[in-house]
């Protein structure tokens, strides 16, 4: 089967040819914006100090000066944030967009948008509606589907072509090419973005606290089989809630936990479904193996990005990198909780190859997902 994701070697070549020069061009812009940001920081500090000094001298009017300091700080920070956003906007438009097109020319990119909250709730993975739902860097598009029988049959026909049957082989290839005109070819739609879901709660003293329910990459992909119902797969070692309470906040149809044929899969994941047979139809033994491999690969890639810290902190972070899957009415959702910011640029540092490689990996992950799970292999009943 044709590989649709890109390799490290392909990235290296792309970086040298397309990105390196672009970063150099953008360096002048970064330095200008950095200078402007530093200037704004200095002006804000001085402007904030003046009312403080006055407040100390004229203590009767301390509150008025305190408010003035507060207003100065807000204005200063909003100016600095605007400067950063302008830097980030340029970088995303010029660098990330190029990476997106390199990975798949069919993909589109909207830096300000994200997968909607309704889709997040539709997954039924989390027991509670998040109080805050944020996100950015929406990438979406299509991957053209491959019919395994067509692809392999072509290879077989051509390999076995003889002077006697060459006419037949040629005519069959022509016929199948007619059948597979791009505009008619079935395709797998995919969309993904960075998402953060936060639960806000009050502690015993009445103070508001925030817990991050999910922070990572959220993929919404067409599944290669048609089905109705919902099947949710979450890691057994769950972080923020007890999987058994999963449908407390959700209404009918009820999700029931089932045991599958794969022992390792059962140990690592809990599966809840509205229809046991449909869950087994989706989660064939072969597909479960692929999901385990995909999960390990995604975890490994996220692990490599954890900065060098104390071993215990690293171990704790790794434990939190968990995947969730949800299958609903012909759709597959993959949520990779990385607890990391994706597609972020540092105004104080020149963008290097490693950071661009991380953006590349995040986007490439979507194609790896389609490829490893054969989601673009339409063999069965999907129109």
């Amino acid at each position, binding site marked *: 089967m044709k590989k649709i994701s890109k390799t490290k070697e392909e990235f290296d070549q792309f970086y040298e040819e397309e990105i390196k020069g672009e970063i150099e061009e953008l360096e002048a812009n970064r330095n200008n914006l950095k200078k402007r940001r530093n200037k704004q920081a200095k002006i804000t500090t001085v402007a904030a100090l003046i009312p403080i000094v006055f407040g100390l001298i004229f203590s009767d009017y301390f509150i008025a000066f305190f408010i003035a300091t507060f207003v100065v700080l807000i204005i200063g920070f909003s100016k600095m944030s605007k400067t950063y956003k302008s830097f980030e906007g340029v970088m995303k438009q010029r660098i990330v967009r190029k990476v997106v097109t390199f990975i798949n020319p069919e993909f589109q990119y909207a830096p300000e948008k994200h997968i909607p909250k309704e889709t997040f709730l539709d997954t039924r993975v989390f027991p509670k509606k998040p109080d805050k739902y944020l996100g950015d860097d929406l990438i979406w598009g299509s991957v053209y589907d491959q019919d395994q029988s067509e692809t392999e049959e072509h290879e077989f026909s051509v390999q076995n072509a003889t002077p006697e049957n060459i006419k037949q082989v040629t005519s069959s290839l022509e016929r199948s090419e007619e059948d597979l005109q791009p505009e008619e070819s079935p395709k797998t739609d995919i969309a993904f973005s960075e998402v953060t879901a936060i639960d806000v709660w009050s502690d015993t003293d009445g103070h508001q606290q925030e817990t991050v329910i999910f922070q990572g990459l959220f993929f919404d992909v067409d599944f290669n089989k048609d089905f109705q119902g919902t099947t949710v797969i979450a890691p057994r070692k769950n972080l923020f809630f007890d999987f058994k309470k999963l449908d407390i906040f959700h209404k009918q149809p009820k999700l029931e936990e*089932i045991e599958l044929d794969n022992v390792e899969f059962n140990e690592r994941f809990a599966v809840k479904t509205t229809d046991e*047979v449909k869950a087994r139809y989706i989660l064939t033994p072969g597909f479960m193996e692929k999901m385990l491999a995909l999960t390990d690969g995604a975890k490994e890639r996220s692990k490599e990005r954890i900065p060098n810290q104390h071993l215990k902190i690293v171990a704790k972070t790794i434990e939190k990198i968990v995947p969730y899957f949800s299958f609903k009415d012909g759709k597959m959702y993959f949520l990779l909780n990385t607890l990391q910011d994706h597609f972020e640029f540092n105004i104080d540092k020149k963008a290097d190859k490693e950071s661009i490689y991380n953006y590349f990996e995040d986007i490439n992950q979507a194609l790896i997902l389609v490829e490893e799970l054969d989601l673009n292999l339409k063999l069965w009943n999907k129109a």
Partner: protein
Amino acid sequence: MFIIIGVVALFLLYIIITYNNVKKGAVKVEQSFSNMDVLLQNRADEIVNLISTTKSAVENEKELLEEVTALRSQVNRNSTKNVEDKLADSQRLEGSVNTLLGRLEAYPDIKFTSQYNHLQNRITNIEENIQAQRRTFNARVADFNAYLVTFPRNIIASIFNFSQKPSFEVTDQSKKENPDVSAMFEE
């Protein structure tokens, strides 16, 4: 006296609960088998369509087509048979159909007709559903059998003549998770 009555009542209650649970388990297994039976019947019906679509173009496969037709008729006459016989017939039919689909791949005139592709997709889809139903059936049978063999339920089961149920094991001939399309080309 009250203690003895209480113990007897508890014992009777346990027997009733166990009996009901076994009955419920048996119903679940039967229900699962009925669902699978419907799919097996659907597959047999689609095979008739497949044969009528391809018959004229594959004179060389006459013997194989006759075999599949005979097996399909056997499955059709299955309504009076027990679960084991139905499963055995179905497995034989599955093996022959796979062989037939593999052979049909060698006929380009058939391969590229949309009707044939549609039928092949439908059969493969039904196969996938049968596999899913089979795994569900086996899971229910395993739960049922595990419930029966544990003490003291095994004693109650033998009193009421409850016996273990056979699972649907896949034979080598019909064993396949997803139909291996590439293997079909190697025939």
